[in-house]
């Protein structure tokens, strides 16, 4: 029983991180029908920006939790800025072009960010400072959960709930949903679609930056190629939940984390990824548009 509870905790922790990153994929796709392949790298860039705040001279002298808060603020601000810049430079000029051109541009941006991280921070594993957050661990029923894990799960739930409320219960959220359904119609209704697109390139990367910095704080290490690994997992989570659907990305992320934990824990660690992805294929065979995705008539 302890083992089972532990696996649930393991799965929910990484699943929350996958979900936070997956939201960035799903929001951009929802509004623009574009897979932003640079998103994973943006998130990891967030981890590196946070690392610089945490270990650099800028943050010197602040006590742990205040410093961590500062790192989150810096990371969110920088990565949102990077998100807008990405949209302006890599995607906006191609908005009228062939879809494939935007995909190539996204892959190029991904490589640019990845190699940029390597040039600035170096190719070796970067280690986060220890002792920033309380090392408290609670043990119960043979399982254990650490302070950082609790923070990750709670913060993710709060952020995701806030996003859900924002999109569904505010005027701007309504504009986002309208633009997602039909950009031209939204424009005719007087919605500034460019502002909507700009906003998803702020919100998505901001949540991703939080996810990226959580990775850094949880595992206490970061390296420049990590964006690809996490990006791939989060992208799959978004597909699993139904890409373009916000609660879907949350559910997809959590499920993927749990799948992975159970596959490694109960079936075979050497086939961990194969089992996870086989399950994914199975779900998509039954529900081709993902768990919460709706089958919408293809637009011309």
């Amino acid at each position: 029983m302890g083992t089972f509870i532990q696996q649930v905790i393991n799965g929910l922790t990484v699943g929350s991180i996958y979900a936070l990153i997956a939201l960035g994929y799903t929001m951009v796709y929802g509004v623009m029908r574009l897979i932003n392949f640079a998103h994973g790298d943006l998130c990891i860039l967030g981890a590196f920006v946070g690392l610089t705040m945490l270990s650099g001279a800028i943050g010197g002298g602040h006590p742990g939790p205040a410093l961590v808060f500062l790192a989150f603020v810096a990371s969110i601000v920088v990565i949102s800025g990077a998100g807008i810049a990405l949209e302006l430079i890599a995607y906006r000029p191609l908005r009228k072009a062939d879809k494939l051109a935007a995909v190539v541009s996204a892959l190029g941006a991904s490589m640019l960010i990845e190699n940029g991280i390597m040039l600035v921070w170096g190719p070796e594993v970067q280690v986060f400072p220890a002792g920033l957050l309380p090392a408290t661990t609670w043990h119960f029923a043979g399982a254990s959960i650490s302070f950082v894990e609790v923070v990750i799960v709670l913060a993710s739930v709060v952020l995701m709930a806030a996003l859900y409320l924002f999109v569904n219960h505010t005027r701007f959220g309504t504009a986002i949903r309208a633009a997602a359904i039909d950009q031209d119609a939204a424009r005719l209704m007087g919605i500034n679609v460019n502002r909507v697109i700009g906003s998803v390139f702020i919100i998505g990367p901001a949540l991703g930056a939080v996810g990226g910095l959580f990775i850094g704080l949880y595992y206490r290490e970061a390296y420049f190629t990590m964006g690809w690994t996490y990006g791939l997992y989060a992208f799959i989570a978004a597909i699993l939940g139904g890409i373009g659907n916000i609660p879907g990305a949350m559910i997809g992320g959590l499920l993927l984390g749990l799948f992975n934990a159970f596959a490694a824990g109960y079936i075979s660690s050497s086939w961990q990824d194969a089992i996870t992805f086989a399950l994914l294929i199975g779900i998509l065979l039954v529900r081709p548009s993902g768990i919460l995705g709706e089958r919408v008539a293809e637009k011309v």
Partner: protein
Amino acid sequence: MFKKLLIAGVSAGALMLGSGGVSAIAAPGPIVFGVQAPITGPYADEGQGIENGVKLLAEQQNAKGGLLGRQIEVKVCDDEGKAAQAAICARQLVDDHAVAVIGTYTSGAALAAEPIYARAGVIQTSDGTSNELLKRGYATWFGNAPTNSAEAKFTAHYMVDVRHFKSIAVLTDHSSFATGLADSVEKDIKAAHGHIVDKAFINAGSQNFTPVLTKLKSMHPDAVYFSGYYSDGGLIRAQMVQLGMKAVFVGGDANQNVAFGKIAGTAAQGAIIINVPAPQDLPYPAAKEFLAAYQAKYHVAPPSIYTFTNADGMRAVMQAIETTKSLKPAKLEHYLHHMKNFQGLTGNFTWNEHGKRVGSPFTAFEVQADGSYKIVYPAPSAG
């Protein structure tokens, strides 16, 4: 012009003396030791380490009156780590009447040179560890570094015979290096009658190791052996502690990196890493003396443990010459193949009939609270 003529004259004389041949050995000239090593090229630091080590040993021995009352002369040939150059070096050192050749660094260069030495009856001792060299049955070949399988043997011996772990979990990533090491360790643990509860895999770099560790925890192993790299090893150690696992972490040689301790943080303390020690960590008094003399003479640290294993090769050959009071290849080979428990700078060892080093320089380190390493096995007083 005159100088050149003189040199030509002298070398012609030397040639004639050389062709005077076998009986010249009895004359009280110097005993020649050859060094074949990559003095230039990508392995230059290793090659220069071998050259420095051999010259230092020769100097020390000469100060004590030399060998059999004769001085030692060291002749060096740069093989650049290349097979073609290695063959040229071998012929040159054979022509120089070297009794024994120390080096080289790469297996490929050793493989190209050894047939020439074997035909000429010149002993070669090198850190090249290719199995090919052991297979061909060269009587003159003495490998002074541990073979690739020695780490696994030592690991199994340490965990089963020394620490008496009742149950061991083996963890590896999917790389050929780590799976190869894990397979060998698994095999050797079984051969030592140890019990393996599970062999599990991680995806290197995936960071999310808690699921597999949770599974291992439920099997209550005494130790978790991880054959992969430090960036994953440090995290595995940290996540073991986070999950409240009591098992001892034992890591393969790729875990030895300063980043291991940084990533694992406070959890690093008590982790065991198995590797050949760095020169400054060799526990034996003779090794400490040699290191001090090396640094006093050259004002740099030796590049790696291989400076020491090659020095061990030279020391063994000198011991053979002194004990047998002979320079005859057959006598020296017989002695080296049959000597018992040679006390090396890198631990005690012997040579089997193929010239394979038996007795490894591997040690088990324990990571200390300050991130430094402490050798826990073999006991530092040994040797």
